[in-house]
């Protein structure tokens, strides 16, 4: 794809990025940051791609490290965000009755 098409996608994505999070309550700042953090873990795709075409040992080594780091970011990011959010799962007022008292 040529540069202008990529630039178009880039510019439009900026607007979408601003738009989707324009109204967010303070309570969700941290989960949202964490979720966005997970999404940029998609750099894993880039790590896999460059390692897949690497030939020199140095390139392969760096590529494997990049892939490893990308996978940590991607998987860890989504899992930790899910953990933050499972606290918010809908709970009926039944929670009032003693259910073991936490930890």
């Amino acid at each position, binding site marked *: 794809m040529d540069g202008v098409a990529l630039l178009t996608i880039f510019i439009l994505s900026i607007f979408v990025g601003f738009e989707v999070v324009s109204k967010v309550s303070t309570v969700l700042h941290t989960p949202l940051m964490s979720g966005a953090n997970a999404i940029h873990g998609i750099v894993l795709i880039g790590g896999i791609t460059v390692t897949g075409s690497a030939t020199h040992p140095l*390139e392969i080594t760096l590529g494997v490290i990049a892939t490893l780091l990308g996978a940590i970011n991607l*998987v*860890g990011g989504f899992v930790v965000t899910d953990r933050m959010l499972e606290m918010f799962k809908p*709970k009926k007022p039944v929670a009032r009755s003693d259910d073991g008292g936490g930890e």
Partner: protein
Amino acid sequence: MTPTWVQLANLLAAVLFIFALKGLSSPKSARNGNLLGAAGALLATVVLFISGIPLANILLILAAVLIGSAIGWISARKVQMTQMPQLVALFNGVGGGAAALVAVIEYLEVGGENKISLAATVFTVVIGSVSFSGSIITFLKLQELMTSRPVIIPAGKWVTMLVAALTVIGAVWLVISPQVWLLAALLVLSLIFGMLFVLPVGGADVPIVISLLNAFTGLSVAASGYVLGNVLLIIAGTLVGASGTLLTKEMAKAMGRPITSTLFGAFNGTTAGNTSTGGDRPVRSGGPNDVAIMLGFANKVILVPGYGLAVAQAQGTLRELADLLTARGVEVDYAIHPVAGRMPGHMNVLLAEASVPYEQLKEMDEINPEFASTDVVLVVGANDVVNPAARTDKSAPIYGMPILNVDQAQQVVFLKRSMRPGFAGIENEILYDQKTMLLFGDAKDSLNKVVSSLKNL
């Protein structure tokens, strides 16, 4: 050329990422939103493997993906909720590092013929490395492996400016005359700049910096997508870069911090510094019984939980105390500062974990008018978020941050481990006030004692 169906699958993944961010902006849809994002990531990864695009070193790649996924999964499951902010910082850092490495490898493989692509490579390496080393420093600060206060290097302002200037010159030079040693030097310079950028940041500004570095990583991933000609990376990275920038601004607003002071703190050398160390000023301390009596015979009590509560894992005990008081007919509310804990929304997560009813959690704007008509405020392990210095002392690093007005209540009880100041390192005048009583000790311990005294009332 990438097959059309693969491109379409990537488009679907990009749409899922947009839905993910949209979903995460509202409490009802947040969890599903996150799952949609994960589905998009899984889709894109699986499709890449089965697309038929030739991949050399496939076994090494698979091993790296599996091991990385396992490390990410396990650390995310095992981490204590109190330590979650630093884990997010760490994940962000490794993402930035991955983007920088991808760009370096692409340069080694392809070289620097195309100048625009080379500029994108240089951008990815610089921003990715800054995000990597900066995030590692925030991790060390939050994990308290190093001081959480601003670190001031002698002549740090000039050193930072010098490194920044060298980085820019190196970047431009590299684009003009591509050489591998220059790329390596640029990598090192960027890593150093990332550290210098974050070291002078302390206390309340740390979460804002994590959010900012998160946006940085997003942008570097987008640039790496340009280098590789990968549309999905461009979209995903840009989405994070844009939404992360907005989020950083919102966070700074919630904490009353001018974003420029966070951003350019390293250059201005604006620092917390001179905290009046109170030394041996007299304070009024009491025992668990005194506290139980104050609370038990009050009409209206407001609980202010802070990070110290989370550290002591005392959320459950605090809830027990609140239930006891409610049973005695005392009106009880929790006052949640936007940044109670270590990050916006952190305390809500921790209290939800202890099954505190959501409707008892009152946000700052809602609860602040209530303090004047409150008999007793119980502050558990919080300090900076109730420090009136934020209103009065222009030299305080938290000046301008909206606080909970606990000083307006009739009486204030602090459960504290010691007289040590809070995360931002500033003395709190309320502690020395006549109407304040201090109960020293571990938050969980103290709360337990208060609870049992209360039962015997």
